Every structure is written in C-alpha cells, then in structure tokens.
C-alpha cells in the first residue's frame, strides 16, 4: 500500500519555543489517521506544515508523494483542508461559496453548478443553499466548510478538530461524512482532542504531547499498552470459583463472590490460552467479559509524566 503522508524528523520552533520535536509518522493511503493531543500539543502546527501553510525547520515531509517545501504547489493540488476556524465567505450564500470553489478548481459552469447542487444535498444544506452563510448555525457552517474542501476531489484531506464545539448530533453527522469519504478512497488526517472520535474513526492513532509522539498504533494496541486490562470470569457455583483460584494462580477478587479477575491484555491469543486452561480443568464458566482500559485511560497515562507506561 502506498503511503499518503510520510514525515521524518520534523522539527518546528517559534522563537525559543519548540513546538514539534523530531516527529516521525506515516499514513497509509485510503485510511484515517488521527493525531490526538491536548490543546497546545502541536496538532494544528503539524496540520499547517502538512498543508503547506508553514515551513518545517527540519525534516522530510511528503504529502501525496510530493515534498511540502520544494513542491508545495503539487501538494496543494492534491489536498483539501478544513481547519479549526471556518474557512467560508460569510457574505456569500452556501451555494455561492461552493461555486467559488468550483471556479477556482476550473470546473466548467455546468459542472460547477452540478457539483454544488450535489454537495449541498449530500451535506443536508439544500434548503439553506440560497441563504447567506452568516445566518448558518455552527454545524451547518462546518458542513459547508467540509463540502467546500471536497469540491476539488482531494486525495488527502486534513481535518483539524472538525467537531470541536459541535453538538452531539452534528458531531455524529460529521463522523458519518468522514466514514463515507474513506469508503470513497480518500486519506484522512484528523486531529482531535476527543478520544471517542479517534476511537470511532481512526485506523491508526498517534498521541502527541509536548511536540513529541508518545504512542502510535490502533486504538486497541494503545489500550493494551497500559495496565488495567483484565478478563472477568463469573462462575455458576462456589466450587468452580475456588478451583479456578487454585488453577489460574494470578487472580484477583471481584466485587461479586462468584467472580474473578484475571489480568489480560485482551488479545485473542491470551484469551485462547485462558479458555484452553479453563477447558483443560473442566471449569464451567457462567460469564466471561473482557475489560480493556478505554482510550481516556490511555491518553491520561501517556500524556502524564507521573504515570509509568507498561
């Protein structure tokens, strides 16, 4: 699989303040990559460099196969950016904004109109298309913003905190739009401070803290990296419970008298080993549930120096 974004040794400082410190990352084409971090972690700076708005101080940054410094125009031709602050023209109508983008992408008059109509419909803005954007709600504005990004059919789309400040319904709408886009084959680079969002959408997640990547992997891999994962077994009778305590060794009591906690990273392999062990000793298990820490635990553990990482 070709990579849509490759970053090696990226550094950026503003004066004395180091914002990005030796960043490496790779995003495979057609996937969603999420950069997760608190405010001020360097997410927006990363997006600005990848989208040619800022020049890197050092490092090799390639987007859609082109170098962002030497070949910025080729990068611009391949990307679409929806930033944190809406990039729409408030004095124009929704449709005029889309037509403006169509004109700048040199679509013909008829194609431009068709594309604008299509996108208005796809983003649920058909009724609002003729109204000035200054009258739009936050969610509508964000959808129009993304629709404008899509006019040029970009290969790589940067979404910088696309749902910050949106209500839950608008957020879910935005997630669905992102899923549809990925299904269409584009690569999405998403920054967010919501773990739930990264968990929902991203194929791979990188956690940025203080300008450094502190972890990278799938949501599940990240969850397994910190302690606290366990399998909860609940037995039908006390006899099986007591036998299991003897057989399995490392166990901890659970709140329930018939239940046990067995430490586990939640991987299929370790589950299979546990189940084999239970079968070998003919232990009848009433309930089995896997408990992995959620991304919030991971995030807090990874971005807090005081918590050791397993």
């Amino acid at each position, binding site marked *: 699989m*070709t*990579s*849509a974004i*490759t970053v090696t040794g990226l550094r950026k400082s*503003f004066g004395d303040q180091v*914002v990005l410190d030796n960043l490496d990352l790779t995003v495979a*084409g057609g996937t969603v990559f999420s950069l997760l971090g608190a405010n001020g972690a360097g997410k*927006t*700076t990363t997006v*600005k460099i990848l*989208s*040619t*708005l*800022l*020049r890197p101080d050092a490092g090799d940054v*390639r987007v*859609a*196969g*082109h170098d962002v410094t030497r070949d910025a*125009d*080729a990068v*611009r*031709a*391949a*990307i*679409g*950016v929806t*930033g944190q*602050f*809406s*990039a*729409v*023209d*408030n*004095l*124009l109508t929704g449709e*005029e904004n889309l037509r*403006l983008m169509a*004109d*700048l992408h*040199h679509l013909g008059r008829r194609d431009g109109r068709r594309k604008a109509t299509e996108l208005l419909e796809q983003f649920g803005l058909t009724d609002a298309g003729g109204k*000035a954007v200054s009258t739009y709600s936050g969610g509508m504005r964000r959808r129009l913003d993304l629709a*404008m*990004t899509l006019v*040029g059919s970009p*290969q790589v789309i940067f979404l910088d905190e696309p749902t910050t400040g949106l209500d839950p319904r608008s957020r879910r709408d935005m997630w669905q739009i992102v899923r549809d886009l990925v299904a269409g084959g584009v690569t999405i680079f998403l920054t967010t401070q919501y773990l739930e969002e990264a968990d929902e959408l991203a194929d791979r997640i990188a956690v940025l803290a203080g300008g450094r990547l502190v972890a990278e992997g799938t949501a599940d891999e990240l969850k397994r990296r910190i302690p606290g994962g366990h399998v909860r077994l609940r037995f039908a009778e006390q006899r099986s419970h007591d036998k299991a305590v003897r057989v399995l060794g490392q166990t901890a009591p659970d709140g329930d008298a018939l239940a046990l906690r067995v430490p586990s990273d939640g991987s299929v392999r370790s589950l299979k080993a546990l189940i084999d062990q239970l079968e070998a000793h003919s232990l009848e298990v009433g309930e089995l549930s896997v408990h992995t820490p959620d991304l919030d635990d991971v995030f807090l553990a990874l971005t807090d120096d005081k918590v050791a990482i397993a």
Partner: protein
Amino acid sequence: MSTPTLTAAPALRFHPLRDSVTMLRRNLKRMLRYPSMTVLLIGMPVIFLLLFVYVFGGTMGAGLGGSAADGRAAYANYLTPGILLMTVMSTVQGTAISIAMDMTEGIITRFRTMHIARVSVLTGHVIGSLIQAMLAVAVVTGVALLVGFDPTADLLGWLATAGFVAAVSFAFIWLAVALGQASGTVETASNAPMPLILLPFLSSGFVPTESLPAGIRWFAEYQPFTPIIETMRALLAGNPPGNDLWISLGWCAVIALGGYLWSKRLFNRESKL
C-alpha cells in the same frame, strides 16, 4: 528513497487571469452584499464637497480673485479635483478595510492551501476596488456638477481625466492592499490610510499653495497629491497638464510598484501559529 505518488501527477498549470476574474466576481458580490460600506465611502467626500462649497465657498471664492457673487461657483470649480482625489482615497481606505477583513477570516487560509494563482487573491481586490473607485468618482462628479462645478473639458479631456484617475486609483489601491495586510486588525486597517485622506488638505486641493506659509507650502508643492490635483484640474479645464502629468505618473508608478511588492511579500509570509 522516493514515495510513489497516489496518481500520475497531472501537469500543474496556473490560471492567474481566470482565478483573478473569479476573485473579482467574489469581491463585487461582497460589495453588493455590504452596500453600507460603499455608501459610507462615497458619502465622506460628498459631505466635504457640500461643506466647502456652501459653508466656506463664498469666502474662499472671493480669495481666488472672483467677485463675491460668483465666488461660490468659482470655488466649486477649484475644489472639485481635490474632492475627486479624496473620493479615490476614501475607496482606498475601503480596500484596506476589506483586505483586513479577509485576512482575519479563514477563507484566505483556505485559498493559501489551494492550487490557485496566489496573486489572484490580491488582484481580485485591486480590480474590484478600481471599479468601485471609478463608480464613486463618477457619482461624486455628478454631485459636483449639481453644486456648480463647470468643467470646460471636451470629450478627450474627460477620457484623459478618467484614464488618469484610474492610474492614480490603481497605484494607491496597491498601497492599500499592503496596508490592509500589514494592519492585522480591521480597526487598524481603517486608520492606517488616514494620512491619505488628510494629505489633500496639505496640497493645492483646497487652496492655492501660494497662500500657504513657507514650511507647509514647501511640503505641499513636493508631495504627490499636488501634481495629481493640478493634472486633474488642467485636464478638466481643457488645458494641457504639462509637467504635472509626468510627475504624477512617476509617483503613481513608484507607489504602485512599491505597494505591489510589499503586498506580495506580506501575502507570501508564513501564517502565524
């Protein structure tokens, strides 16, 4: 090591003309949606025109050597070129404001990440403002004609005046594009071109420079607005403008080029964190 591209790279071409027309259309639409701005920009010189003709006109006209009775009309004639230049400066102030408004909105950031001829963002503003300036000058000329302005230029003189006003507007609009970008906020942008509004007072626009005290007179005679106003005065009166025309065009060339280069540099600087 090279990363394979996702698709075969199409030949990248820029279309500065087409993009400029697109941006121009955007700016004209914005002007129509925000008409109070245009009204304000035209209103200011009109108020000055009426104030000077009807309040000061009688006395000023007498000072020009006419009789008290036709003094007002004589002063309206003398005053109009200066007011027309003030009209241009007023639109230029509008340019600085709308550029600053644009820069504070996210849409310019979007344009910067798009594969478009970058200069078109600015040329769209320049051409839009030029159209606005010419319309404003036409309106103010109309008002001036109603209050006693009595030009003796023939058609050629009018055309020459229009061309000259366009050249002056073009130069100062480029300066305003730079000022608007350098300002950072809309408030600063509306104040930055203030000297351009006030400079006509320290020129031959309202009174002949001979009537000014030595220091101000020296300044008035060498600042660009005096030859510009004298050229307009000559063209509108059907007289040859002589050296003033060339001095004015020289100033315009310097200001336009300086404004253009400064604007381009400001536009290409990195966006802030």
